[in-house]
């Protein structure tokens, strides 16, 4: 049967199991928008800025593991997607971004709202397509979804000229995807797995470093089996949080710049490291030349290009984490590492990073801990970037699989609100808490309207320190306390929420934190709390940029909270 390009696209989306599209219309995609009502299975969420369409698709993808879809018109619509696509690319989030393009006769002529979006997104997509014939549509869409989700996931962009949406052609759905140039290796090499098992079985101070790859591969049970079988302590990366229960006896927090001292010490002292689905990012390793000096490293990753990229690896295993661990676990001999584990316990006691200190005033760590207490950890937390992100990662304990969603690789402020929208739509039955910075929140604040229009029950906590806090912290620690352009005026967030029709509260008094969070939880529908916290609180511990993981700075002993910092904001 003949169908238009737009209909074929929709048919394909339905066949891919797409349930929601985050989008924003415009001239070049009008034929597609005109077709959408014929496909009521495809829910369309109208965002207020295309960047947020990409972030929401990304949040949806992270929360569900399914490919997120975003849609924008040509020109400015397409360029607005760019940050969101890059964000998904760096954190390996499966996404298909669809952009309209000017009609084919106008391509290359600087026509109205023409931009070379396939050129622009070349380095931030796994692959991209310009569809010049409706006849190619079904094949392209099929391939795009395959590429986005297969192997190491990532974004794929499809650019479609307006006239291609309108062209009529026979609709043939390709049964198979045939891409000779893209065949991810899913199973680890048996010899390498055997070597890894031998190394683990002979280790005295083994350590697992688990990353987001475990979450993507849904290898939660396999990871746990490995850890428990051989009593191997587990530290995660920031994006790996939620791949192993944080209250488990074998869990020792996360490593890196703001990681726990005991996690970093464990890395530096381990004799065998099993790095699983992680990529040795510089924020995680500190100075590379002094990273894990005593360890033989086993690196399990689905992306061969990650192996040996940043650190030297002794046993590389390319494959899907779940598959590899299933085979590996069979070869692991049960063991106890009493001495090593008690060493780690001792470090944990000596460097307690996660106790909220007693204060009169309202500190952000306390806010996060109370959200944890009130929700009993039963929530998906979506964070902004900066101090709020680090505190959210530190002071909430993530026991539920895949319960923290955060922009890691790109560190995109403003991800929190649209990211939470995507997460809530993907997992509507879960409580979603958006932990926002006052800076980041103001970058995508307009999405409050989307929340209301879609009736999304999202709880928002603004960690309002009146600063671009993380940058201010660097200025404080590394730039002689010169706070150049990091003081941040903000509007009355409660009034803003009110104007959008969202219930809201301001909390300045520590004693009211818990009841405010309870109130938000009891409230049906979105709720915003503006937590006006200590302005000059710092995130500790911190490993200064370029330093080794052992060169951490902990919170100074003297109570930092002085009257001076309690001044009027």
């Amino acid at each position, binding site marked *: 049967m003949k169908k238009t390009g737009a209909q074929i696209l929709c048919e394909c989306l339905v066949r891919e199991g797409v349930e929601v599209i985050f989008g924003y219309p415009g001239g070049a995609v009008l034929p597609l928008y005109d077709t959408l009502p014929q496909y009521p299975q495809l829910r369309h969420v109208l965002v207020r800025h295309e960047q947020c369409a990409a972030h929401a698709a990304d949040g949806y993808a992270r929360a569900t593991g399914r490919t997120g879809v975003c849609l924008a018109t040509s020109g400015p619509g397409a360029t607005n997607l760019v940050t969101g696509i890059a964000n998904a690319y760096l954190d390996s989030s499966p996404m298909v971004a669809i952009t309209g393009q000017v009609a084919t006769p106008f391509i290359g002529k600087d026509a109205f709202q023409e931009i070379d979006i396939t050129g622009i997104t070349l380095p931030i997509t*796994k692959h991209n397509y310009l569809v010049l014939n409706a006849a190619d549509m079904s094949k392209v869409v099929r391939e795009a979804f395959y590429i986005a989700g297969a192997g190491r996931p990532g974004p794929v962009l499809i650019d479609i000229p307006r006239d291609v949406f309108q062209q009529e052609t026979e609709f043939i759905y390709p049964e198979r995807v045939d891409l000779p140039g893209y065949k991810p*290796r899913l199973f680890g090499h048996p010899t390498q797995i055997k070597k890894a098992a031998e190394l683990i079985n002979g280790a005295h101070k083994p350590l697992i470093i688990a990353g987001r790859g475990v979450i993507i591969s849904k290898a939660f049970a396999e990871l746990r089996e490995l850890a428990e079988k051989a009593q191997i302590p587990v530290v995660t990366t920031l994006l790996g949080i939620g791949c192993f229960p944080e209250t488990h006896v074998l869990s020792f927090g996360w490593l890196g710049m703001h990681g726990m001292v005991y996690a970093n010490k464990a890395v530096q002292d381990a004799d065998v490291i099993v790095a699983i689905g992680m990529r040795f990012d*510089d924020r995680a390793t500190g100075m*590379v*030349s002094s990273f894990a000096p005593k360890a033989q490293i086993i690196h399990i990753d689905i992306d061969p290009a990650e192996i*040996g990229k940043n650190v*030297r690896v002794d046993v590389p295993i390319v494959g899907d984490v779940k598959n590899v661990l299933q085979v590996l676990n069979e070869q692991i001999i049960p063991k106890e590492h009493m001495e090593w584990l008690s060493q780690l316990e001792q470090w944990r006691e000596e460097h307690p990073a996660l106790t909220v200190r007693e204060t009169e005033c309202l500190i952000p760590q306390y806010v996060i801990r109370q959200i944890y207490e009130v929700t009993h950890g039963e929530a998906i937390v979506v964070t902004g970037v900066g101090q709020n992100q680090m505190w959210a990662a530190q002071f909430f304990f993530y026991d539920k699989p895949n319960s923290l969603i955060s922009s890691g690789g790109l560190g995109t402020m403003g991800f929190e609100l649209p990211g939470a929208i995507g997460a809530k739509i993907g997992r509507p039955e879960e409580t979603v808490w958006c932990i926002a910075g006052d800076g980041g929140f103001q970058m995508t604040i307009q999405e409050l309207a989307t929340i209301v229009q879609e009736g999304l029950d999202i709880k928002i906590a603004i960690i309002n320190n009146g600063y671009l806090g993380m940058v201010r912290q660097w200025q404080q620690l590394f730039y002689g306390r010169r706070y150049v352009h990091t003081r941040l005026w903000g509007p009355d967030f409660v009034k803003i929420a009110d104007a959008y029709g969202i219930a809201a509260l301001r909390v300045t008094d520590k004693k009211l934190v818990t009841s405010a969070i309870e109130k938000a939880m009891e409230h049906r529908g979105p709720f915003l709390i503006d937590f006006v916290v200590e302005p000059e609180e710092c995130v500790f511990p911190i490993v200064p*940029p370029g330093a080794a993981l052992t060169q951490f700075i902990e919170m100074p002993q003297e109570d930092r909270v002085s009257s001076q910092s309690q001044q009027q904001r």
Partner: protein
Amino acid sequence: MKTTKHTLVALVEDKPGVLNRIASLFRRRNFNIESIAVGQSEQSGLSRMTIVVDGDDAKIEQVRKQLDKVVEVIKIMDITDEESVARELALIKVRATPSTRGEIIQIVDIFRANIVDVAVDSLIVEVTGDEDKVDSLIELLRGFGIRELTRTGRIALTRGSAGPLLVEEPKEVKVLRQPLKPPREETESPPDW
């Protein structure tokens, strides 16, 4: 840090934008591509590409792995250490006066090159061979005055009957061999938040 001249050969889909994707991965790492030659291969729809690039071994291996992930790249290999045949073609327009013409023709003969165009005051010489041969001929002709010069860059095939770049299912996953414990390298200071 060891840097050598590497020859990469790739079998790629013959589609628009492929060259751009490949070049862009080199550009991002600030590699200067010395030469790149693309043309049809023995299989329809596929092109064979020969890329010559100078760089440190580990970094080239990293780019090679990245290139391998490009969807349109069917296969890519670093054949620097393989037994292979490499050739390039150069066209050299050299000044020729009645008094120098004979001498030039002699040199061209010795190199088994050809004269493919004759004008009143110049000749175009065509030469095929490995880079050394082409370089030496150019050096010799320089004395007469080279007006214009163009080289194709290297094209290469590995020796033996079964080329490693035939399209077929890999029988066994190639295991990466890495030196046991080279000192860890420090990257430049990491970017700020």
